[in-house]
């Protein structure tokens, strides 16, 4: 496989000043992309998939999300904000949708649109795509960018099963850009901004797969915007712009459910399953790769537990968010007001290349050397305590053995072995005798 690819663009960064090297992030990373070196968490950029599990567990907020400054919107005359339904669902009922919109309008956005307007036309298009798909099934959803990256890195053989349709967010962005164009607005005056519930979506917008270029100009951190809106409400109450006309909030019950688990799969004909949270997604893909699961037509795969309700930048409890989404959905029609207009001018079908596989090289690109290293790593594992304590700076004993044979660490890194050499009796009292004796 061609590994001469430009490096992965990441939306997550470790602030070494803040990092206390506690190893919590290292333990939860699903691709084992983190190590502790010199007292700081260190990222392997080719293995990171921007899922944000590290962000969730960091006790000192040392994992930074590379979003755009809200002040950037003022570079543009027309400032459009694309808002996911999740954003509204974070607020308690007393802060009404209109109140939130009014506050956002006060902040300088000239137009507000709900992101999931683009979902409705995708229902028919995904069904057509799945039906016409010539390759091996299941077709894998392209919705969650962390999952797309997981597939590139850890399941490269499935890369060509990733649906080559753009997600609702991009469809909506395309629609509104076209609207401005139609109304004679110069495109350089148009700034399209998106409020993101996660880091993966930032990475996907800044560096999309399949040669696609996003019309979105900037990405705003949802947790930051939540704080700004809530503060404005607490200080000034509701805005008089509550009923401003520049709001395209038209949304269908299909659209509002899209970011929640099953919101996509429920619309797909044939055998369609919805899987959420990274460990579940990995387990399911492994079973699929193991030929244990057959006859599935479509898979909705989401990196976060409860899908976007559990996004790393989403405030409040994911179950409460889901509850509020259900409540909001009750009042929505099956089709939104702009449905026909979207159908007339938009499509998820964009000329796209297949997603490139980026298989992680564990040992060496040359299989002969890789085999030698694997055998050596397997021997070393017998000498390591197999308790995955992480004190060596690697997430597991297996990972340490791999690092040793790839010259990234030494046997000396194993703190437990040092302790055993110093006081065997004490260590055996805890971990038993068999662990250290052949």
């Amino acid at each position: 496989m061609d590994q001469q690819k430009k490096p992965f663009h990441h939306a997550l960064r470790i602030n070494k000043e803040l990092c206390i090297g506690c190893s919590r992030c290292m333990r939860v990373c699903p691709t084992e992309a983190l190590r502790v070196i010199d007292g700081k968490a260190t990222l392997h950029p080719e293995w990171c998939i921007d899922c944000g599990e590290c962000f969730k567990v960091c006790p000192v907020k040392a994992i930074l999300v590379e979003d755009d400054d809200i002040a950037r919107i003022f570079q543009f005359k027309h400032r459009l904000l694309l808002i996911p339904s999740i954003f509204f669902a974070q607020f308690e009922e007393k802060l009404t949708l209109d109140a939130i919109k009014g506050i956002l309008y006060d902040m300088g956005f000239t137009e507000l649109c709900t992101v999931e307007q683009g979902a409705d036309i995708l229902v028919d298009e995904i069904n057509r795509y799945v039906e016409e798909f010539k390759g091996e099934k299941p077709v894998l959803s392209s919705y969650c960018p962390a999952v797309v990256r997981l597939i590139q890195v850890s399941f490269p053989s499935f890369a060509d099963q990733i649906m080559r349709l753009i997600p609702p967010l991009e469809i909506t962005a395309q629609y509104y850009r076209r609207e401005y164009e139609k109304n004679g607005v110069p495109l350089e005056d148009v700034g399209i901004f998106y409020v993101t519930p996660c880091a993966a979506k930032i990475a996907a917008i800044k560096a999309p797969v399949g040669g696609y270029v996003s019309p979105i100009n900037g990405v705003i951190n949802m947790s930051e915007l939540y704080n700004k809106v809530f503060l404005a409400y607490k200080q000034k109450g509701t805005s008089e712009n509550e009923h401003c006309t520049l709001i395209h909030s038209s949304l269908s019950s299909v659209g509002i459910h899209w970011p929640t688990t099953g919101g996509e799969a429920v619309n797909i004909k044939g055998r369609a399953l919805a899987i959420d949270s990274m460990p579940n997604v990995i387990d399911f893909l492994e079973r699929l790769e193991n030929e244990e699961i057959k006859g599935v037509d479509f898979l909705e795969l989401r990196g976060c537990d409860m899908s976007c309700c559990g996004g790393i930048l989403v405030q409040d409890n994911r179950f409460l968010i889901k509850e509020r989404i259900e409540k909001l959905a009750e009042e929505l029609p099956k089709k939104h007001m702009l449905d026909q207009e979207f159908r007339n001018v938009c499509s998820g079908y964009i000329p796209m290349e297949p997603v490139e596989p980026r298989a992680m090289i564990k040992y060496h690109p040359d299989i002969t050397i890789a085999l030698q290293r694997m055998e050596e790593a397997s021997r070393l594992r017998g000498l390591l305590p197999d308790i995955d304590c992480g004190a060596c700076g690697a997430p597991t004993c297996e990972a340490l053995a791999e690092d040793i044979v790839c010259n990234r660490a030494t046997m000396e890194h194993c703190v437990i072995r040092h302790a055993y050499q110093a006081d065997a009796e004490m260590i055996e009292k805890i971990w038993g005798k068999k662990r250290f004796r052949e």
Partner: protein
Amino acid sequence: MDLSFNIQGGDFTSAGTASSQVRRTLKELGVDASVIKRVVVALYEAEVNIVAHAYKGEIVAQISPERVFLKLTDEGPGIPDIEKAMTPGYSTASQEVREMGFGAGMGLPNICKNADVFNLHSVPNKGTTVEITIQIS
């Protein structure tokens, strides 16, 4: 690299452990996905055969830069009529086994199709040995 696994007859919950481990190893070695797929299909079928038909068995996987060699030895009823067993669609699996989604009678021909070299040796009332070789390069 040698990997070995013990298989218990009737233990469907563990069926697939060997093919899963071998798949993971080949993936870590950077073996081409199409080769891994053939190994997984052949090994999974052969592994399930032991679980479904034999009392117990052993799987040995030898991985070299050139090829994957799989040897599956079981103690079991053996295959009385190999020619029949190699016919697509022929099955001796019990109703119970079929209800679990196994025993469609495609096992042996499917293994054979995915293997570069396929050897089958069986002694009725004693057991069966299956040898599968799949070239890597």
